[in-house]
């Protein structure tokens, strides 16, 4: 299914979706009218108290899409339109108010509904200076206003909910009925939406919302078509997909932020329970930080099962999960849509549609790719934690644009990772010299997927497939020798000075390192002869694996070998770190005796 079609389908399954032609908007004021058009009451419609006071959402006729022009809504709008009053400068308030009056004079002409008549009478009578009267408050300025007949108001029946208003709105909003075209979402003939409703809540986009379907410059149009005619989508389909998307974007249960991609996801299944479970599990894949109180037991079991595989789960859990996963694998369709803004337009970063079972398998593959020993301090780091490792200064806003989306797409599809992932991580390592478990696991994952190499999870002292891995280990040994000789308080260690060139052009550096380490070793021998022997032994061991006859140090390393270098360094370095810790506890144990 196409993106719009699947969203339009999701709309049909939304539990409390606004009906066609209506939309939920934040309303601040209700004006009660007498039948002669005089104001009977003005009621604030707020939630909360004091500073937290916020307008309350209400179902109102769909707003028109306003960009630069003046366009009034039907039966409701903000005060500058309805009353001609605004707190700002309001250069064109008078025009806006006139437009509101004019539209309603036109649409409401000839009505005999007492409510609609009252509104007409009110508009004819109203002048902006009447706002000074006591019942109006300055707080009301620039809020959205709806009307009600005073007699209806106590029953919470608003003017736009009166049957006559609804019938009129159906007629007004249903398009002119002329020029029906085939809709590319439904395949049925209908009036085509000229402009689609705005999509709000895409991170980094304009606050007034943006559009997926828009043709805002003539370079984007074809065959002389105007606006919506370039891609005929019926009014109903346009309403359905935007409503569904807006609902998902504003709902924490259907939304994730991954880098610059605002990601929405939803499940579609006959079995509503299974769909809910899938929707609850998905965000836990990529942002497990929230995993606590609101995670159900079932989601926990599913996650454990996916992360660890069946073998390592204990029996009871595995049995319980079996039933659950069967439910999810059968007939739950899952959709993921990544959006990124480009000013007023919204671009699709990625779109994924498949069975949940396949998604779960791809996630499992991702977890396996990323597994590394020793692990990061928290297991299963959220995706943004990894992404930050690609960013300058470790700031989330510095994550290279598009990288997050491309990576996410690769994870969801089980496809190759973007190679920019490897090059950015390598250049980050060169720039700040830090190589941690997160970076190492990204290196490992790219090596496995894109280069189809066999890569060890933990330190593998016998691994000889890659020169980069061996030299990375050797580099860590030299660093350790320096540390053993000079202690931890060296201003610039050989890692700080040489990591970048050692990983890229080893031949230039390693000769230097070797001669330097001889001096350090001599010092270590005096301080602690045993340690010197151990380090030398390790160095020889690594050297032996390298077949020195073929020339041990290549002139330069390609990106994949640089990744191996980083991985080898990380493995060896953390091995030293581990043994150092063990030694310390041993030593303290001895002194205690």
């Amino acid at each position, binding site marked *: 299914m*196409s993106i719009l079609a699947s969203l339009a389908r999701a709309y049909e399954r939304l539990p409390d979706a606004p009906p066609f032609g209506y939309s939920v908007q934040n309303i601040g004021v209700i004006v009660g009218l007498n039948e002669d058009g005089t104001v009977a009451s003005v009621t604030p419609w707020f939630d909360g108290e004091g500073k937290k006071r916020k307008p309350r959402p209400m179902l109102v006729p769909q707003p028109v899409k306003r960009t630069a022009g003046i366009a009034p809504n039907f039966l409701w709008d903000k005060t500058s339109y309805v009353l001609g009053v605004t707190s700002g400068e309001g250069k064109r308030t008078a025009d806006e108010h006139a437009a509101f009056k004019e539209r309603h004079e036109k649409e409401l002409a000839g009505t005999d509904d007492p409510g609609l008549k009252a509104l007409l009478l009110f508009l004819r009578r109203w002048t902006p200076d009447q706002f000074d009267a006591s019942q109006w408050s300055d707080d009301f300025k620039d809020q959205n206003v709806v009307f009600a007949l005073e007699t209806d108001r106590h029953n919470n029946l608003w003017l736009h909910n009166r049957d006559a208003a609804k019938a009129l709105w159906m007629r007004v909003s249903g398009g002119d009925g002329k020029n029906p075209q085939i809709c590319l979402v439904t395949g049925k003939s209908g009036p085509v939406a000229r402009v689609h409703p705005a999509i709000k809540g895409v991170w980094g986009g304009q606050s007034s919302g943006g559009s997926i379907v828009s043709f805002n410059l003539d370079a984007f149009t074809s065959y002389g078509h105007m606006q919506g005619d370039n891609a005929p989508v019926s009014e109903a389909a346009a309403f359905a997909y935007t409503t569904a998307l807006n609902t998902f974007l504003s709902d924490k249960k259907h939304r994730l932020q991954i880098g610059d991609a605002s990601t929405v996801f939803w499940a579609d299944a006959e079995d509503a329970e299974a769909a809910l479970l899938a929707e609850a599990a998905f965000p836990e894949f990529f942002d497990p930080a929230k995993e606590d109180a609101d995670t159900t037991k079932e989601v926990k079991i599913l996650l454990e099962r996916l992360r660890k595989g069946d073998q390592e789960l204990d029996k009871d859990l595995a049995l319980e999960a079996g039933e659950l996963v069967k439910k999810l694998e059968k007939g739950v369709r899952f959709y993921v849509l990544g959006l990124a803004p480009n000013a007023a337009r919204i671009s699709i970063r990625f779109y994924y549609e498949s069975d949940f079972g396949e998604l779960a398998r791809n996630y499992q593959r991702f977890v396996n790719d990323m597994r590394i020993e020793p692990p990061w301090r928290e297991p299963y780091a959220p995706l943004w934690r990894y992404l930050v490792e690609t960013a300058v200064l470790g700031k989330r806003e510095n994550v290279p644009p598009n990288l997050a989306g491309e990576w996410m797409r690769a994870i969801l599809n089980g496809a190759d990772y973007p190679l920019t992932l490897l090059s950015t991580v390598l250049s980050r390592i060169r720039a700040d010299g830090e190589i941690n478990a997160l970076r190492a696991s990204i290196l490992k994952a790219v090596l496995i997927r894109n280069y189809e190499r066999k890569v060890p999870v933990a330190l593998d002292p016998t691994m000889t497939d890659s020169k980069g891995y061996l030299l990375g280990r050797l580099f860590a040994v030299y660093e350790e020798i320096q540390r053993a000789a000079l202690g931890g308080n060296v201003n610039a260690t050989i890692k700080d000075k040489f990591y970048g060139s050692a990983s890229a052009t080893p031949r230039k550096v390693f000769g230097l390192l070797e001669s330097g380490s001889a001096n350090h070793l001599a010092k270590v021998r005096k301080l602690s002869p045993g340690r010197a022997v151990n380090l030398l032994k390790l160095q020889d061991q690594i050297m032996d694996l390298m077949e020195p006859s073929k020339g041990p140090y290549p002139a330069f390393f390609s990106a994949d070998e640089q990744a191996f270098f980083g991985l080898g360094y990380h493995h060896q370095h953390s091995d030293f770190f581990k043994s150092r810790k063990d030694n310390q506890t041993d030593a303290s144990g001895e002194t205690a005796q």
Partner: protein
Amino acid sequence: MAYGIRLKVWGDYACFTRPEMKVERVSYDVMTPSAARGILEAVHWKPAIRWVVDAIHVMKKPQFQSVRRNEVGSKIPAGKVKSAMKRGDLEGLQLLVDEDRQQRASTVLVKPRYVIAAHFELTTKADADDSEGKHLDIFNRRARRGQCFHQPCLGTREFAASFELVEPGDPTPEPAPEDRTRDLGFEDARRLGFMLWDIDHQAKGKPSMFFDAVLRDGVMQVPQPGSPEIRK
């Protein structure tokens, strides 16, 4: 299908832009019939014949990648060109690309590979010299030699297409076993949604025509002109 031909086409990238997402471009999953027609016409076309695409065989699982490019924000209006021609003066008829930039994202297909199955019909412009056999021979000869009037492309001009004739009588190439997945409609037919069939250039307003695209065992059947499956 008596005069059917099959042409293998492939390239590094392809963008068969969906009409609803043609600003921030998103490609269809599979080549559209009108894009296939464009490739065939690049190899051989005469006013006497009209290409009809029968089916698109998909050889590779669709894979996407998203790129951002700086493009131009406006076109030179045809009316201005006309008046410039009348005046015999180019004054005011220019488009300064570096001053009219639009950054646009495109989600494009990576390493696509298809076999186009098509045939042609003679049009009313065919005269006594035109026979179906003649044009078929011309096409086959040209495609075999790799000749084309202009470089065929996969959806947009910047994504050039390579092509190769599938010899008459040879079996249609099949996707590799690892690609015979549900993405290509094996096991279960995969619905792709409504796809652009072509533009109705004859009708007033040049409306678009759509059809319900389904991938079944790696093949997308394309409805014949005039069939009720084409919605317009």
